[in-house]
């Protein structure tokens, strides 16, 4: 009897994120939409990693004999104004999208989470100040922040990542802080204090693991948002610079000018953006339902 009670305690004392479904099969049965999203994400990852081997052409190779070629057996998705193969550019473009998506989402959500937990932990004046700062950045127009970062530092992948990460931090701080406020009054935090743990140890070892649920949910949602924001910035000419293959960049200029005569140039890159973001959103939704059904409105 004792053993059973102890085992039960053991399970409930674990942070929420240990409790998600272990087998992929059961995940797919309960959340078919999430599984569909996961399949698309895996395909995107595969095409990004395997691009040098599976892409039919070099994404930068121009072929003026095949300018504006419609989809044919030689060029499955057609070519652009420089005769570059669209399929190959989309495959290499998924590298840019995923790199920016993952790095920006990870840094934005992580910095936000640390700030949120620290703010909730410290309380008092520090909490109040962090919250006012968060208010300011939430009220600040995102696109201006991104525009300013790119204007100050110039275009390029690392600057675009910074421009996308910055606006994500306050949002995540706010969400994680509200979860952390509940965690702070938990008995295990108190006992950690009593056991003589320092502030840093309490924050990183005891509080952070217990706000993993909102953190993971924000993280997956942010990957999609980052890909979308990167596409918008590149489309404005403020993101990744030519000739790097990037989906938003492929929609810029000639794709719009020649949309009537060469619609494939405008259709496929947009489809790639939508499908990529769609997949991350589907997966994120299922993950949210799986980890913590109470967070439905996040």
């Amino acid at each position, binding site marked *: 009897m004792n053993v059973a009670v102890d085992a039960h305690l053991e399970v409930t004392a674990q942070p929420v994120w240990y409790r998600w479904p272990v087998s992929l099969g059961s995940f797919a049965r309960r959340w078919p*939409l999430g599984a569909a999203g996961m399949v698309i994400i895996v395909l995107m990852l595969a095409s990004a990693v395997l691009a040098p081997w599976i892409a039919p052409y070099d994404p930068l190779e121009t072929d003026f004999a095949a300018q504006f070629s419609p989809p044919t057996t030689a060029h499955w998705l057609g070519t652009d104004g420089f005769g570059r193969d669209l399929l190959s550019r989309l495959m290499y473009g998924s590298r840019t999208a995923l790199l920016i998506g993952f790095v920006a989402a990870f840094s934005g959500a992580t910095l936000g989470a640390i700030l949120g937990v620290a703010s909730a932990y410290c309380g008092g004046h520090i909490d109040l100040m962090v919250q*006012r*700062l968060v*208010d*300011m*950045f*939430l*009220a*600040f*127009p*995102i*696109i*201006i*922040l991104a*525009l*300013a970062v790119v*204007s*100050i530092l110039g275009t390029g992948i690392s600057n675009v990542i910074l421009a996308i990460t910055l606006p994500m931090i306050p949002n995540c701080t706010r969400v994680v802080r509200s979860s952390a406020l509940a965690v702070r009054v938990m008995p295990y935090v108190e006992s950690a204090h009593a056991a003589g743990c320092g502030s840093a140890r309490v924050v990183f070892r005891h509080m952070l693991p217990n706000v993993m649920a909102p953190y993971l949910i924000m993280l997956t949602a942010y990957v*999609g948002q980052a890909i*979308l924001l990167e*596409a*918008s910035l590149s*489309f*404005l000419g403020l993101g990744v610079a030519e000739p790097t293959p990037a989906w*938003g960049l492929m*929609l810029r200029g000639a*794709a*719009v000018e020649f*949309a*009537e005569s060469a*619609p494939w140039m*405008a*259709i496929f890159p*947009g489809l790639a*953006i*939508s*499908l*990529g*973001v*769609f997949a991350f*959103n*589907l997966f994120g*939704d299922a993950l949210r339902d799986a980890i913590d059904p109470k967070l*439905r*409105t996040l």
Partner: protein
Amino acid sequence: MHRYILHRLLLMIPTLLGVAVIVFVLMRVIPGDIVEMRFAEGRFFNQELVEKERARLGLDRPLWRQFVDWLWGVARLDFGLSMWSGGPIRHEIAIRLQLSLQLALMATVVAILLAIPLGTVAALWQDTWIDYVVRVFSIAGLATPSFWLGILMFLCFLIIFQWIPPMVFTPFWQDPWQNLAQMTWPALAVGYRYSAVAARMTRAAMLEVLREDYIRTARAKGLGQGRIVRHHALKNAMLPVLTVIGLEFAFLLGGLVVTEQVFNLNGLGLLFVQSVARRDYTLVQALVLLTASVYIVVNFGVDLLYAWLDPRIRYQ
């Protein structure tokens, strides 16, 4: 309640002041100023002229002085003159606000008309094919860039109808048809994304409300499904939806930079990009303060609306 309102109103001041400091510093950190931008392409470029122009615009004064003067103007609701055009900023913004406000309002109407029925239906038939269709439709709305949707719309018009929407903005009261022929399409493209956000919130809120005791009571006393949904569930589920709609509306006013570009609309979003590119400090500062104020006021308004709509909520 009055104390709460006063407290919130007072809190707006440090937030706006912070926003003012951020935009002021940010703009000055961006390399190059308006004088360089203006003379960059001209041939008559000499240092003396540059200095004279900087002095005329007040850019030679110490930074703190520029900030204090500007803030003093803002406090008296005088945003000054645009550095680029020389015209009053109030006027520059007013002509664009007309377009942006109309677009934001039309997109909100599209979003509400789509989101509330869709979200309700999805919640009522949770985990059936109807729910899945609505969810896929709304997640797709979040994933599709509205500028791409715009490009696709233009393509359809061109290929199927051989027609393109008018490119020049006509105010609604001058020629309603011409105005709607131009504005309907961006409103649909933006409204779709917006409705996706609101539909998801409606579904989530409805799911929560439908499990409440008072819904069971309503069913037990024999009320029909329609009456329960309209009178008991929807009213209670609308609060979080209102927040989303309010905040998205605030975002739409200044955030439609890319969509405006695709639809060739001369709204606030385009003005934002242009004025940053021209380093028109005064105009950017006024625009940022305007959008931040709208965001803060809408946020505050939604909170007050909460208390008004739900008597259980009382702010201390």
